[in-house]
Structure formats: C-alpha cells, structure tokens
C-alpha cells in the first residue's frame, strides 16, 4: 500500500513529531482492536449456529484482520518494520486494543452482543476520522466504512433475533450486555494521544464526544429490544495503555505460535 505519511495530501500536522506519534497511537488502537476482535470472531469458524452465520462470522473476521493489516502497514512504513512483526511480534502489554475485543467468546449471544457494540462504536470513530483533516487517513476511513456496514447489518439482525427470541436467548443477551457494556465504554478511553489530536485540530470530536454519539445511537435500539443497559456502569479502561485480561496473553500465545517458531521465515 502507498505510504500515506508521504502522500501528496498528507496532513501538515504529521510533520510534527508529537502529532505523528499521536496519529500512530490512533492507528495502533484501531489496528489492535480489529486484529483481536477478528481473531475472536474467527474462533467461531466451523462452530457457529448455522452455515450462514458461520460464513458471515468468518468473513467478518477475515475483513477485520484485513483492516488491521492496512493500519499496521502504515505504522510499519513509519518505523521500517512489517505488519507481521507488529501483529505477531509483540507481547500483550504492547497491545492497545480495548478489553472488549479480547474477552473470550463464551456463548453465541456474547459474541453477537460484543460484535454489535463494537461495530457501532467502530462506525462512530471511523466517521470521526473520515470527517477529520487527516487527508489520506480520512479517505481510508471512508473506504473502510463502506465495508464495515455489512458487519453492522449482520450484528443488528442477530441481536434482534436473539433479543426477541425466548427467555433463554433474551436472558443470554442481557447477561452478555451486563458484561460487555462497561467494556464497550472502554473503546472510547481517553489518552494523552487522543487529547493531543483534539487539541491540534486533527480530530473534531474527542473520545467523550464520540462515546456520546455512540450511546445516542445504541441506547434507543437496546430500549426497543427491551434490553437494559447496566445503570451507572463505569467504563473498563486500561486497554489503550496495555492493561489487559490474562485472556489476551493466551490468545496471543496461540495466534503467534507459528510466527514465533521462525520470525525470519518468508511466507
């Protein structure tokens, strides 16, 4: 992929080292979210409730990981490393994904609730980047939004199907929401880097504003499905600073085992 940092329409702001680092942090958070949630989705391949959802979840997984790669490619271009090394060569403390994305799947209801909360949150932040003066990064966000729409449609349909199902299904969805909601709030964790981007005008909306947009998007939909958002739940933060569940370490051990067997191999 072309090096977006050196594109003719690259934003002037990235010529400043601190701003460049903040954009890099933004891309890393996006990439790590996409890779880890993609990996979790991929664990359903062969096990989803029906063939259509198996194909869909596997396709979504493939696409999320493909999107992660595009962001890793840009970070790699900045640092002379490779997307593979960024994806497979780091320990859990170096990952900046939200805790929401790393939690093990548990049941199908949890995976659907997680996918739904995440995809709506991802849409809000991609729209924010798409509307930003970040030039080629904004163009990339616009392109990705068109692809992510299919994920949202899938998650919307399944959430409704389960929430309007019997007591077992709707009970599982509610329990999944109780767990996932505070972690979904953590997708919008504020960091010194996100504050920097707002200060220099690279992002029009900070994480709190993005979170409000997301909440005004998802809350009415949950109400309509008779699902209850946990009252007064505090956001589970820390993911953007490298604090993760032990499960991320397990996930990475498995995901990186082949790569670690010979990091210099060419595939």
């Amino acid at each position: 992929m072309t090096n977006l940092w050196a594109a003719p329409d690259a934003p002037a702001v990235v010529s400043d080292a601190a701003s460049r680092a903040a954009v890099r942090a933004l891309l890393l958070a996006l990439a790590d979210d996409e890779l880890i949630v993609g990996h979790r989705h991929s664990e359903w391949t062969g096990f989803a409730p029906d063939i259509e959802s198996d194909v869909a979840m596997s396709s979504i997984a493939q696409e999320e990981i493909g999107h992660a790669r595009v962001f890793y490619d840009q970070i790699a271009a900045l640092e002379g490393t490779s997307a593979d090394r960024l994806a497979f060569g780091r320990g859990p403390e170096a990952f900046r994904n939200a805790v929401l994305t790393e939690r093990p799947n548990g049941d199908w209801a949890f995976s659907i609730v997680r996918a739904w909360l995440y995809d709506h949150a991802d849409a809000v932040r991609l729209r924010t980047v798409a509307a930003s003066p970040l030039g080629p990064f904004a163009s990339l966000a616009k392109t990705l939004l068109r692809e992510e729409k299919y994920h949202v449609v899938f998650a919307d349909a399944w959430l409704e199907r389960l929430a309007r199902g019997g007591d077992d299904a709707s009970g599982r969805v509610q329990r999944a929401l109780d767990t996932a909601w505070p972690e979904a709030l953590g997708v919008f964790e504020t960091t010194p880097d996100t504050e920097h981007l707002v200060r220099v005008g690279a992002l029009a909306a900070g994480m709190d504003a993005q979170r409000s947009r997301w909440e005004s998007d998802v809350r009415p939909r949950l109400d309509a499905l008779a699902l209850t958002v946990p009252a007064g739940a505090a956001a589970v933060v820390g993911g953007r600073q490298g604090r993760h569940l032990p499960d991320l370490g397990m996930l990475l051990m498995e995901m990186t085992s082949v790569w670690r067997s010979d990091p210099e191999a060419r595939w």
Partner: protein
Amino acid sequence: MVTHDAVWQALGEIEDPELPIAITDLGLVRSVEIDEGMVRVRLVPTFVGCPALDLIRERVHRRLLGVPTVHAVDVQYTFDEPWSIDRMTETGRARLTAHGVSVPRVHLAEPATCPFCGSTDLVLENPFGPTLCRAVYYCRACRNPVERFKPPADVLPVPGR
C-alpha cells in the same frame, strides 16, 4: 521504449485469483505511469480486507517484468478514491454473468437478476459468501442458489426480501 498499450495489454492478461475476470475488466487498475523502463502501477482494491491483494500485486509485478524493455516495476494499492462497481467494464460484467455470478448496476439493494433464468424473483440468503465480494441469493423461479457480486455498500438490502 515501453508504451502504455503494451503495459495495459499485459495487465489485461492478468486474472483475478477469485473470479474469472481480468483485473482491468474488474477495474482494479487506477493508473499506469511509465518513466523509461520503469513502470508504476496503482491498484484500487474492491475490498481493503481482500486476502488476494498480495497475490494480485505479485502477478502484476511478475507479468510487467516480462514486458520487453521494462526493467523495474512498482505496484502499490491506493485508497484515494474507493473502488465502485461502475469501474467494472461491460466485458467484465458479461464474463461474470456467463460464470453464473449476478452483477448489480450500482448497489446490492437494487433487484437482483438470476444469471441462469433471468428472473428477478431472488431473495438474499446471506450478505456474506465465498469471498468478501460475493453475496448469496436464492432464485425462487429456477430454484438455484445464486452468487451475486457485492460492491462495498452505500445502500444496503434487507435479508430475506
């Protein structure tokens, strides 16, 4: 001396790895620049997450190095302007239809046409199919499953209708 004709002709011989269509008919080639024996090609992916991107880039690289007097090739993907279905040529549409893949004009939400019997009585079974760029339909008229080329979405269809 390398000519645009020679480069485009070579590009036209490269097939997409997932469908029987030339990458030029699919509309993947955004631009070609020639500077003496150096050729720069910019490609635009249908889907950014497509796993075939590396393979396509390698095919382009290898094929263009086989064009007489070309000594260097630079192939990169670009996202300046996203791929859209109007980049597909009429030849490309005809080839996919002959292969049994329905191709929408603008977006997936418009009525689908069965590539086998011509009926428009199709239902969307799954917006996800064998590749990221294909959705799965069912034709109620000839009772065949139908794959349909799926452009990245601006307008979305409703499953089952």
